[in-house]
């Protein structure tokens, strides 16, 4: 009955209570939403590359290797010679190996030379493969497959010509060997979306007339001649490696790291991603603490509402006192009301969150490649909800104590 009266009392002040509930609901939805985006971003980040056991490159830092080989951020300090590459490829532990050659660009997008095997070996988001949305994979030397972002931001269609620039942010272009867009990849939410992919031989082909990073003046080999040439590369930037058995990963990693002919580095993508996330992760903590403060603000707002309602509720408290309720009972009633308000707010908040997720999930996935899973609330989220209710009850102790004092001094006197 006390619970029913508490609910009735809340109902009598429906408007102010509804506002408080709304404030709590919004803050809870914001907090859980940030939490969702945070875990989703972390998972998306870790899902950028999967199915690859080792990334091999010239010796530098593991984060740096990951950044330039997978995220196309920064530059390789050095290349891996073709001999070393073939040496690793021939090792018995190696199941498959895909070379990556970087260094050129098209507009603001990186150009990556690789083999056709890349399209079947590169996996993201727990084993999802690349898909060609339009056109086909490269069939000719001067064919290119472009990522979804490249196509959309530059407005390219299949069969459009592309001229690759030498280096990154440079004005010297490989004008003599234009490429043709043969295919456009489906959106993945990974750096592949922002990559122009050509064959490894094509990278060699466009550099036939170049020496020491500059075009030899007056020399221009026509494409027909280039096609006849031996286009085996001298070096690659990095390589993605899959091993026969997971047990061999560490042995192969050690072998590569101790390779004597050339300083090389092999990293486990998962480990390097963790290292990178540890650097990026500071922002997530900041974001989370800001939204936690919003929850605290909403709870303090509720406290203010309870305080201001105390005066108009003196009569109600006097009736309770006259009926034999102890001052502590009145205090308990107020705390119960606050806990109820917070609980309704928390429930409404989680409903808001799921409604928002259902609407925003496809939009966010399309725009940012960020996949936010819609799942039952995790234990962590339930703890947050419970925490909000408990915090609401604790915060209400302050006005409840004032109500206790008031009901002691007022006694059974009816003040209106």
């Amino acid at each position, binding site marked *: *009955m006390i619970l029913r*009266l508490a609910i009735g009392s809340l109902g009598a002040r429906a408007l102010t209570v509804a506002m408080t509930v709304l404030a709590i609901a919004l803050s809870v939805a914001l907090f859980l939403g940030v939490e969702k985006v945070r875990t989703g971003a972390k998972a998306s980040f870790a899902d950028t590359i999967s199915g690859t056991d080792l990334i091999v490159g010239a010796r530098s830092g593991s984060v740096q290797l990951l950044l330039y080989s997978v995220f196309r951020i920064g530059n390789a300090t050095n290349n891996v010679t073709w001999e070393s590459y073939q040496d690793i490829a021939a090792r018995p532990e190696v199941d498959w190996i895909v070379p990556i050659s970087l260094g050129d660009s098209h507009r603001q997008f990186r150009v990556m030379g690789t083999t056709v095997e890349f399209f079947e070996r590169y996996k993201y988001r727990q084993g999802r493969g690349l898909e060609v949305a339009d056109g086909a994979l490269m069939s000719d030397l001067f064919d290119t497959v472009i990522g979804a972002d490249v196509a959309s931001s530059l407005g390219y269609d299949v069969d459009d010509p592309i001229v690759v620039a030498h280096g990154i942010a440079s004005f010297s272009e490989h004008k003599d060997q234009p490429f043709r867009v043969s295919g456009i990849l489906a959106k993945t939410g990974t750096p592949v979306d922002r990559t122009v992919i050509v064959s490894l031989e094509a990278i060699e082909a466009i550099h036939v007339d170049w020496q020491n990073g500059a075009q030899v003046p007056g020399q221009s080999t026509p494409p027909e001649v280039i096609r006849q040439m031996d286009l085996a590369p001298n070096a690659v930037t990095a390589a993605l490696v899959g091993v026969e058995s997971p047990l061999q990963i560490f042995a192969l990693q050690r072998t590569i790291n101790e390779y004597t002919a050339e300083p090389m580095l092999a990293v486990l993508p998962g480990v390097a991603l963790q290292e990178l996330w540890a650097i990026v992760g500071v922002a997530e903590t900041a974001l989370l603490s800001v939204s936690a403060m919003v929850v605290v603000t909403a709870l303090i707002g509720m406290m203010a509402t309870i305080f201001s309602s105390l005066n108009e509720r003196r009569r109600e408290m006097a009736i309770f006192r006259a009926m034999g309720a102890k001052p502590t009972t009145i205090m308990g009633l107020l705390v119960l009301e606050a806990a109820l308000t917070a609980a309704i707010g928390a429930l409404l908040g989680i409903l808001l969150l799921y409604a928002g997720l259902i609407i925003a999930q496809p939009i966010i996935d399309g725009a940012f490649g960020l996949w936010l899973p819609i799942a039952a609330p995790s234990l962590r989220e339930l703890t947050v909800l419970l925490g909000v209710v408990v915090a609401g009850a604790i915060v209400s102790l302050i006005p409840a104590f004032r109500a206790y004092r008031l009901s002691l001094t007022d006694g059974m006197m009816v003040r209106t």
Partner: protein
Amino acid sequence: MIFQQFNLLPFGSVLDNILLPLRFAPARRGRVDNGHDAARDLCAALGLPDLLSSKASTLSVGQQQRVAVARAMIGRPPIIIADEPTSALDATSQSAFLDLLFAQVRAHDTTLMMVSHDPRLAERFDRVIAMEDITQIERRAA
């Protein structure tokens, strides 16, 4: 305890209001077998129509005062204190209300202590103490 006015929790139902004291007084709770039945009987005896489940704020002042009586009577307390319960009522309702109140008090063997500004009510009570007398006694003692 019956107040001048505003006796009931406006958001509670009539039944909730009547049963409220039982919640806080174990002795009175012990004297009531079935709260719902007791409340209904009291309401019937007080001439209230069947409105146990309606909200207290929807009742007229006269009805509210009778509900307050029902609430005071439930669980047969030995004494009822009433603070000008009739001041919000007009003369006719006043005497009708007092008739009901006295009937209930007699039926339940309860002492009624009532404060009033209206000397006309005095004749219906067994003992009457005027406030002036109390203040004089207090002054003498001081």
